[in-house]
């Protein structure tokens, strides 16, 4: 009933159809009555009434058909519509203003209102930095316990971009974060304890004219020439501040970069930083207050344009994910913004960044039937960016299933391997995809695991992939990726 009230057009059409059906029914009844009377009259007159009822039946059929036809068409539409999944086109949508975003969000709310909200889904904000230790040799004699290490990482493994390093060294200095300042000590010998190292300098970010609230230093990043300090605030409304100091100039402040959103990950390359921030959209206050992602450099604010925001059909428009490439040498900032989920997986290598988010397939007419669970299947959208010298979108791909585990993705040269599962659905299917550098699917395995077992975690080695499952203890499968284009289950 609520559906009818919310959709007056449907209600009017429904009323019209009912009226049409009623009127035609009246005509049919009237016609039958008249001809029955005529038949009786002929009987009284002792006139032979036509025994051939073909014409009468045909008339009845015609009238009945004309009355029922629109109803049948409507029923067919509903039946077909209810069976057909509303699947996304996978295309990007052009956004021209805030109304476009609000319409997308509203459509999603209609479908997902009775469903769990995205932030309650499994899948934390996990990222993998695979490029920081390219020379790490993997243990070639894996065992089940190796899989467990993925759950409880050792100090040698880097999980998560935002390394939150409070103490780092470049073999010249040792940098130590002390709440609101960075202590720079001379690195003489590894045998010295941190407190014994001679102090060289203390750097305190100058936050005057910036967000005037309590702050702490989140993390520090170092390359040959620069020390970058990211500052975090208690007030979530404050921006991300990145202070860059020139090591070759006695740690003189080189530049301050102000970025909107909450910092998600930072990757330091030689002479550049790749920073990812996330900005949750508060639809209740509107975009006049929300604003769009931006950065400030040299007191000049550069805000992204609506038409430059990337949005993929059927991804949840919950937050802006901004990817910044900061050229520390030339003081240049390049920015790309993606409208999508808040909880996307991030994976970065030396030159590429991958975002993996949910893609929703809805049950047909889920809204009309007010289904408790309108989502029929969940897929993933993998978006690839080139972040070597700036931020450029390369391509994207839609794949079945979702990543439930942060280490389920790895780049092998020009190819990307990713393991997903449909564990959130009734039927469990596990996938192992191989995508090329343009995100085309070159290979997929969908027979991984035993029935009803979904992927728990994945461990990638140079020629093998260990896939661990949830239900059966010590259950795992090995995928041979010696030929990355033709992965095989061993």
């Amino acid at each position, binding site marked *: 009933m609520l559906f009818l009230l919310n959709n007056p057009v449907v209600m009017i059409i429904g009323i019209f159809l009912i009226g049409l059906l009623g009127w035609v029914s009246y005509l049919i009844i009237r016609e039958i009555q008249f001809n029955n009377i005529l038949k009786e009259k002929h*009987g009284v007159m002792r006139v032979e009434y036509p025994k051939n009822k073909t014409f009468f039946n045909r008339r009845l059929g015609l009238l009945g058909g004309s009355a029922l036809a629109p109803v049948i068409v409507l029923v067919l539409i509903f039946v077909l519509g209810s069976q057909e999944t509303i699947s996304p086109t996978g295309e990007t949508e052009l956004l021209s203003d805030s109304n476009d975003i609000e319409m997308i969000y509203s459509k999603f709310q209609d479908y997902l209102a009775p469903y769990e909200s995205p932030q309650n889904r499994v899948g934390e904000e996990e990222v993998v930095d695979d490029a920081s230790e390219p020379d790490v040799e993997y243990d070639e004699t894996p065992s089940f316990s190796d899989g467990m290490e993925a759950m409880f990482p050792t100090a040698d493994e880097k999980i998560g971009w935002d390394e939150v390093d409070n103490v780092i060294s470049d073999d010249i200095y040792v940098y130590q974060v002390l709440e609101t300042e960075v202590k720079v000590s001379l690195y003489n010998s590894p045998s010295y304890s941190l407190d014994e190292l001679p102090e060289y300098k203390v750097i305190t970010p100058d936050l005057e004219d910036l967000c005037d609230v309590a702050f702490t230093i989140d993390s520090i990043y170092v390359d040959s020439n620069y020390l970058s300090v990211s500052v975090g605030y208690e007030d979530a409304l404050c921006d991300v501040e990145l202070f860059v100091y020139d090591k070759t100039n006695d740690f003189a402040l080189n530049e301050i970069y102000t970025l909107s959103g909450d910092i998600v990950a930072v990757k330091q390359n030689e002479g550049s930083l790749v920073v990812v921030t996330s900005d949750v959209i508060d639809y209740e206050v509107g975009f006049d207050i929300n604003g769009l992602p931006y950065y400030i450099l040299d007191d000049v604010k550069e805000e992204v344009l609506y038409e430059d925001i990337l949005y993929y059909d059927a991804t949840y428009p919950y937050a802006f994910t901004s990817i910044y490439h900061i050229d520390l040498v030339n003081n240049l900032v390049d920015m790309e913004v993606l409208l999508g989920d808040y909880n996307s997986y991030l994976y970065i290598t030396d030159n590429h960044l991958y975002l993996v988010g949910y893609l929703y397939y809805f049950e047909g007419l889920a809204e009309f039937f007010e289904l408790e669970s309108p989502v029929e299947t969940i897929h993933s959208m993998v978006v690839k960016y080139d972040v070597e010298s700036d931020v450029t979108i390369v391509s994207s791909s839609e794949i079945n299933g979702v990543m439930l585990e942060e280490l389920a993705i790895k780049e092998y040269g020009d190819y990307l391997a990713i393991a997903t599962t449909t564990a959130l659905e009734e039927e469990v299917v596990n996938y192992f995809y191989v995508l090329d550098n343009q995100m085309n699917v070159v290979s997929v395995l969908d027979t991984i695991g035993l029935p009803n077992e979904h992927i728990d975690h994945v461990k990638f080695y140079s020629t093998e992939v260990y896939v661990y499952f949830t239900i059966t203890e010590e259950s795992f499968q090995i995928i041979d990726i010696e030929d990355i284009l033709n992965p095989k289950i061993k």
Partner: protein
Amino acid sequence: MFKLKLSKNEHRLVKERLKLVETPKYDYVLTDDKELIEEDKLNIVFHNSDIPRVSRLLDLIVQGEELYITGSNEFGQKSVECRNFYYFLVEGDEVYGVLRTTKLIVRMKLYEIEELLVSKDFIRTSKFCLVNIGKIDYIKPALNSKLNLLMKNGDICEVNRSYLKEFKNALKV
């Protein structure tokens, strides 16, 4: 007009053989048993073997005496029994009596024909048409509360809205 009363339980069968339609108001009682006659009615007592003859008798009773109407066409003049006319139609200044495949010009006004055929189950359907109920094949309601009468010769006559009530009453048994 007729009521059938039988001593044995063969009512439906005899009724079909007689092609009889019983009416609530009746003047004739048909029976095979003298004990079942009604004194204030016209009674016809018959034996089952006489059913065909009784049927012909009933035809005569219902249809009444023959009435001929004279009309003419390009083939000459003809007198036709009124029940053979499908309908009478006014076209221009002429009144036509339409038969199965031909029509005759009748030198009478339509209202005169109507008065003449009042007991012959002819009914006025419009200002210009007088229809033989016995020759109606099918009634098809049309829009605007009109009726289309499909005649047995394939022609269509229309019952005007203002004549609808009278037409309905004429059909009532």
